[in-house]
């Protein structure tokens, strides 16, 4: 620790580094403001990226910096994995990718906390990190040197242990979310049944108990690793029982968690850039989580408690029994005729369109209909697909004009004067049970009121219930015709049939 905090050069002075951090987080805030509008969003993202670059450079200027070989190795490894992954990922796989990036962030937080613990353990009584220092006041710097002998303040340990637990939960939870969306792990809920909440609670208590013990001065690395493992189990136990319908909410929640854990790391390391950036992400993730949960008429505690899986599956099974055998199926040719002679068609896209990569085929179909003076619009449910805005991203990719996209509240009153609603791979967000059947697990969730339109065509792979595991009453409506098949090929077939009319 021969490096006194007194600056040897201006560039390495704590004040200068701190100023760079202030510039960095100002850029983060400005960048996020830019993300608020479609026209400024690209620039906003780049502004935030510049802020990140400045924050990294500022950190590397820190006079205590060393082990450059390791830094280069780590950054090279990360770039070698991250850049190709980001370049090559398909737009449909975006939610998984976000889950994965979120997970590695949480993993980094947990590992950093682990190293902090290892370091404090071996050189107890030393203040390890003083980047950003004592806020750059000359007098304070002097005292800061004394603090190094006084030991690690309790709050540093508290924030560090908090970051370790939350980071580990986020890492494992995100990986499970990735596995489920990528369909490596079955999307259906996997749980201990009624014991699930008790298991979660016990794991949480164990992790907290270990954390408190560590903060209180238990110098056992085994205990620390045990805490990370318990938190990992908790991450698994929380996400595994959650069905696919709730997955956007979970990813958003884990995103907020990682942000909060990053802020906690910043508190432990006394680093303002980490605190601000982490906390902003924590706040934004919380808002998104809340927004999504509200859109689905679900409370966040009940999602975490794993309630949806069990009750949803049971209700689905009952529903299937009631309705068996009243489904009408149609052909691409019939659907084409129906669409060609409609005045007004509303397309309701869902996850099925995303999976089948059908957005371009859908755009082609739209063009074909527009040639026939059919008025076409798209009705987008806030949670269609697996993330808010998922459908908008895909349709934008296929060059669908903005003004054809309708959000739920604007779309619903228009269904009554719609001739044909074409539902492409959307399920739960169109289920009238949410309005009509109080016993349904999705009762109260706002839906696209597709059943109000004069007729409905549903393109779907099979009669399997959606991710929520609930039978859709819409399919049994006499107005509804089912066109079974992969979304992309079904839409292409309709377009081909249209061209011949």
């Amino acid at each position, binding site marked *: 620790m021969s490096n006194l905090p007194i600056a040897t050069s201006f560039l390495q002075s704590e004040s200068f580094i701190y100023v760079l951090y202030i510039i960095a987080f100002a850029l983060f805030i400005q960048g996020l403001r830019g993300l608020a509008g*479609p026209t400024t969003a690209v620039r906003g993202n780049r502004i935030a990226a510049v802020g990140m670059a400045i924050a990294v450079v500022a950190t590397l200027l820190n006079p205590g910096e060393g082990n450059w070989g390791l830094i280069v190795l780590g950054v090279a490894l990360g770039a070698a994995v991250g850049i190709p992954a980001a370049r090559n990922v398909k737009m449909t796989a975006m939610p998984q990718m976000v889950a994965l990036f979120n997970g590695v962030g949480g993993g980094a937080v947990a590992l950093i906390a682990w190293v902090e613990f290892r370091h404090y353990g071996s050189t107890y009584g030393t203040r390890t990190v003083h980047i950003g220092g004592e806020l750059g006041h000359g007098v304070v710097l002097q005292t800061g040197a004394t603090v190094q002998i006084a030991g690690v303040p309790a709050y540093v340990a508290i924030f560090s242990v908090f970051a370790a637990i939350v980071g580990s939960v986020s890492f494992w939870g995100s990986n499970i979310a990735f596995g489920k969306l990528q369909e490596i792990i079955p999307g259906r809920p996997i749980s201990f049944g009624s014991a699930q909440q008790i298991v979660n609670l016990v794991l949480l208590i164990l992790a907290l108990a270990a954390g408190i013990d560590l903060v209180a001065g238990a110098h056992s690395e085994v205990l620390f690793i045990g805490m990370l493992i318990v938190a990992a189990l908790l991450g698994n136990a929380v996400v595994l029982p959650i069905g696919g319908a709730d997955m956007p909410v979970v990813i958003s929640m884990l995103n907020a968690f990682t942000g909060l854990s990053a802020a906690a790391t910043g508190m432990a390391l006394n680093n303002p850039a980490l605190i601000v950036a982490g906390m902003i992400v924590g706040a934004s993730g919380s808002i998104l989580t809340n927004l999504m949960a509200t859109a689905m008429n679900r409370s966040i505690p009940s999602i975490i408690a794993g309630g949806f899986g069990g009750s949803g599956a049971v209700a689905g099974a009952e529903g299937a029994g009631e309705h068996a055998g009243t489904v009408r199926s149609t052909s691409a040719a019939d659907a084409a005729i129906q669409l060609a002679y409609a005045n007004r068609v509303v397309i309701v896209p869902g996850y099925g369109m995303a999976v089948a990569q059908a957005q371009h085929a859908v755009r082609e179909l739209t063009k074909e209909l527009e040639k026939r003076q059919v008025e076409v619009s798209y009705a987008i449910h806030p949670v269609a697909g697996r993330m808010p805005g998922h459908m908008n991203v895909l349709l934008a990719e296929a*060059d669908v004009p903005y003004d054809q996209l309708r959000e739920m509240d604007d779309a619903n009153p228009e269904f009554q004067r719609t001739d044909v609603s074409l539902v492409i791979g959307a399920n739960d967000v169109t289920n009238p049970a949410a309005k009509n059947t109080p016993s349904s697990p999705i009762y109260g969730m706002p839906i696209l009121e597709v059943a109000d339109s004069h007729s409905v065509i549903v393109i779907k792979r099979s009669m399997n219930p959606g991710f929520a595991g609930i039978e859709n009453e819409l399919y049994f409506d006499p107005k509804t015709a089912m066109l079974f098949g992969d979304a992309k090929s079904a839409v292409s077939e309709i377009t081909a049939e249209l061209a011949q009319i």
Partner: protein
Amino acid sequence: MIIASTLTTNLAILVLAGFIGFVVISKVPNTLHTPLMSGTNAIHGIVLLGGLLLVGLPGLDGVSKGLLVIAIAFGTINIVGGFLVTDRMLEMFKAKPKPKPAAEDEAHDGEGDS
């Protein structure tokens, strides 16, 4: 005393940052939620700084160094991947008005339904 002032200053930053996060982000339209989630994801990659700070500490053993290299790699993946993916998503939003003149004829046929 000094420690307390560092702590309280940082707590103040923490609280204010939380409020800024709420205010700035509550204005984002639904359409941009996926890119927003991806963008904020990239920003929490700032934990990379934690790895960079700790790796400079003297007296790290092999295990700590190994853990930090992984942490730095993770943080880098989070940042680089996050910003790139967000940029890709947003380019599509931004590209909308541009290709229109080229592909205009077909796209404009049935428009005017707003």
